[in-house]
């Protein structure tokens, strides 16, 4: 039972969104159309929220859970940003032209890639599939608002029966955008490029080797919500994977991967006026990892066992140039923090009867985390923490999810999960990390306890041949919630900061997520989708709402196919941030209406295809502030984006 959610029917491959998954999955990049950046793409999704600090590098949020509470897996690799100020979420190093799929995993599935309270973002890269001897795609686009250029190129070549390679590159350069009042939003410019090489080598009919090498370089990226911009953000990632299918035998499928990624992040304040102090703030994140996963299928069970390891190293420091001609100052913000993690994950999908399936997942993770730098340790002595070795943490999760099919049109899911996650590097050892949103300097607390959550999930879906409607709810009860608590005894370091917060475990926090979704296929040419979300959260100890709770937001999408012209109309309405977490820097925002329209028209050429595309985003030129935007930075006003893409 399929309802096309969005189609690009002019392609020989029609992209369909399968609604057999209860949550509308939206996770395939529209085939060969890489017009959107990963940021835009995440922003439009129903199952993901983003935090904006400017025009680039949006931070993903899953149902109010952020950063250390969610996991990010890029092509099976754990990737940790190299910025102490979260300027470079791992997703900022992605390009749609490389991506086969970007999924948001929730409930059971999310635990396979990391101990995650809120879910996992899983990016799967495109590998050559050896189905065509050569394919080349080129796309260029121009954005009127930011005088922006987006271009991408890919070449996929099958070299032999066994071996194929794919290169893809992307380049983007945008000036600062103007908001809905036609005023320039300074420091929203960005530039980036990406080169990715993937390869598939079939060892036999059942075995293959894959390899990936990706280099991404962001330059001159503005962050209007922060005190600094980014001069350079470089990521180098590589991995080698092995897959084997077994026709018979105890296991059916084996997959293994080894990987390494290296991220270098350099902040820059040289373009800012009235800076209290000029600083150099470089950051480094290196992750080495490997995993093996095996699957076994029996009549009633689908079992997966995965073992993974990663070792992550973080370093960041700060050199401050005295504006008064005094001696320059230096401190470490991440003093060589090393985390070695070993995890095993067991998952079972058990068909109890034709209508009832039980999914269980058990994850156990052991990690050792150390602050290795002697100076870094000395700094923490000023907080009366004397570190002389690594700390060990045991974390993990257990979840059970029942899927029940009442009849051919009603499906329901009920799940319960318990997750215990260890504190992140910044939460443990961060040293005077300035949060520009609540304007506090944050200090890590080396003896933090794990944050624990019990979540209940419920989904109900009713569907008929051409339409469906459903709802999903989640309630989470968090114990030892990790949050910054004001410490009056400490002086802030950053000029303009309001004070110092130290990360603490506080009792009791709760959050809820509620969404309604519906889809109708009026005809083969016309279909409509709706998604409504409302979230709530409260931190008892701070007497404050929890940050990043989505206020009531409705997203509508209408897709229409007229002859060869594909058009889509997107309308989003949000009541705006009504109960901001002021304690954590959020502010009220106004309701807004957002309308986007997109058109795509194919032109047939000999042996090739040409597409003309036009998008008008924020058609009404609404002035609006995203509810999660830091420091009230307004979103982009009307932008007309035109693109030509060419595929041979």
């Amino acid at each position: 039972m399929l309802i096309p959610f969005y189609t690009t029917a002019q392609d020989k491959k029609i992209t369909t969104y399968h609604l057999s998954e209860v949550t509308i999955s939206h996770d395939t990049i529209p085939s060969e159309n890489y017009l959107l950046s990963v940021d835009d793409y995440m922003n439009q999704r129903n199952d993901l929220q983003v935090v904006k600090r400017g025009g680039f590098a949006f931070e993903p949020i899953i149902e109010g859970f952020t950063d250390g509470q969610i996991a990010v897996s890029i092509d099976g690799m754990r990737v940790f940003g190299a910025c102490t100020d979260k300027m470079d979420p791992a997703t900022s190093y992605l390009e749609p032209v490389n991506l086969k799929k970007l999924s948001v995993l929730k409930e059971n599935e999310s635990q396979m890639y990391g101990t995650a309270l809120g879910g996992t973002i899983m990016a799967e890269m495109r590998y050559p599939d050896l189905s065509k001897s050569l394919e080349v795609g080129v796309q260029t686009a121009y954005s009127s608002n930011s005088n922006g250029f987006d271009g991408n190129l890919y070449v996929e070549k099958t070299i032999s029966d066994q071996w194929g390679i794919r290169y893809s590159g992307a380049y983007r350069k945008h000036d600062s955008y103007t908001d809905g009042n036609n005023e320039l939003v300074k420091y929203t410019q960005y530039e980036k490029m990406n080169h990715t090489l993937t390869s598939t080598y079939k060892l036999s009919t059942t075995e293959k080797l894959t390899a990936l090498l990706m280099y991404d370089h962001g330059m001159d990226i503005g962050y209007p919500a922060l005190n600094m911009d980014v001069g350079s953000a470089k990521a180098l990632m590589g991995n080698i994977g092995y897959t084997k299918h077994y026709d018979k035998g105890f296991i059916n499928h084996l997959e293994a991967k080894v990987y390494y990624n290296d991220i270098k992040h350099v902040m820059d304040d040289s373009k800012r006026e009235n800076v209290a102090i000029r600083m150099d703030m470089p950051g480094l994140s290196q992750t080495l990892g490997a995993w093996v996963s095996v699957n076994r299928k029996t009549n009633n069970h689908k079992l997966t066992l995965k073992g993974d390891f990663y070792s992550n190293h973080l370093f960041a420091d700060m050199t401050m140039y005295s504006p008064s001609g005094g001696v320059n100052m230096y401190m470490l913000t991440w003093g060589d923090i090393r985390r070695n993690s070993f995890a095993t994950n067991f998952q079972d999908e058990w068909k109890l009867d034709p209508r009832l399936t039980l999914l269980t997942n058990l994850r156990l993770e052991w990690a050792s985390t150390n602050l290795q730098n002697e100076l870094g340790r000395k700094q923490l002595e000023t907080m009366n923490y004397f570190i002389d070795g690594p700390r060990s943490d045991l974390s993990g999760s257990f979840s059970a999810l029942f899927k029940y099919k009442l009849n051919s049109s009603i499906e329901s899911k009920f799940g319960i999960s318990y997750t215990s996650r260890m504190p992140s590097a910044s939460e443990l050892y961060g040293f005077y990390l300035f949060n520009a949103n609540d304007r506090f300097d944050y200090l890590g607390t080396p003896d933090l306890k794990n944050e624990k959550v019990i979540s209940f999930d419920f989904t109900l879906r009713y569907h008929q041949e051409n339409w469906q409607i459903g709802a999903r709810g989640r309630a989470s009860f968090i114990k030892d919630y990790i949050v910054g608590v004001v410490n009056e005894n400490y002086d802030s370091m950053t000029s303009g900061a309001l004070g110092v917060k130290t990360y603490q475990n506080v009792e009791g926090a709760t959050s809820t997520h509620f969404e309604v979704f519906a889809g109708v296929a009026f005809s083969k040419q016309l279909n409509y989708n709706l998604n409504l979300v409302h979230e709530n959260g409260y931190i008892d100890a701070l007497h404050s709402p929890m940050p990043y709770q989505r206020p009531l937001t409705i997203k509508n999408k209408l897709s229409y196919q007229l002859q060869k012209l594909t058009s889509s109309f997107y309308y989003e309405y949000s009541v705006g941030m009504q109960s901001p977490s002021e304690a954590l820097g959020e502010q009220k925002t106004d309701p807004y209406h957002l309308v986007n329209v997109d058109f795509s028209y194919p032109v047939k050429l000999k042996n090739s295809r040409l597409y003309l595309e036009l998008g008008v985003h924020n058609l009404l030129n609404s002035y609006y502030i995203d509810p999660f935007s830091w420091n009230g930075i307004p979103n982009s006003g009307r932008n007309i984006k035109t693109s030509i893409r060419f595929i041979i």
Partner: protein
Amino acid sequence: MKNIFLALFLSIVLFACNEDNSSIEPEQPILEYAIASEKDEANTYTLTLRSSKANLHEGVNNVAFVTEGDTLPEGGEWKILPKMHMQMEGMTHMHSTPFLGFDEADNHASGIGQILFLMPTVEMGSWTLEVSYLLEDESIADWTFEIQVDAIEFLAQDPTFKTVVRVPMGDGDETLIMGYNFTAGEPAMGRNEYEVLAFKRMQAMDHGHGDGHGHLETYMPLNDLTIKSTPFMPDPSMNHGSPNNTDPSFVSEGKYVGIANFTMTGGWQIKMNVSEGENTYLTEEGQSFYTEF
């Protein structure tokens, strides 16, 4: 424990040797740097001035005098006298400077002590260190070191940022003198134990002779001070302190030990509020210790 010497009239210090006649030579703690070596006036004994730093400087210096070659007779006493010779209008004016320590003296070495140089060597003024070894009040050897005391200069130009704090003590001619010494040698990021040396300077009793000889001021260690301290970064871009500091408290004659936490490198003040009973000599708005690293 032997009394810490205070410079009296002529600022002469006497240290008796340890009356330890065991055959095993007591291990002398030797400071890292040899600053200067001198033969005594009779050209018999060589004495080396050693210091924990490569150069002597304004403020507190950890020093020791160690003999080389011929051994001095046992059971004697050491005398130390630092002197600043200043040329003023054709006349030589002299003053001294406070010190303490030199407890572990024997016939090989004076033991480690601390000299708080109130000022550096300047164009019109030079320092000497006069050292004698006496046996039953009889001088066995006399040495004179001509030494260079470096000025400590800071990038920050604030006249209240000090290596040596000097403030008047109420009425009269008495002055509170304080210097600091980081136990680890240099200040560093993190937790720093530091010593504050505190003396009362009393003017020489005899004024007006002007013969440049004999009448030096005296320094008395102060043992009853209450010191409240605030490490602070005065750079206008910083303007903050640090957490979890410990005020200096009395540990021995003229010496107080505290903890200063430096959360980053840079220029740090240790602002102090110093009082003795009812009398407050210094507040945090006044002079402060200062260091750049």
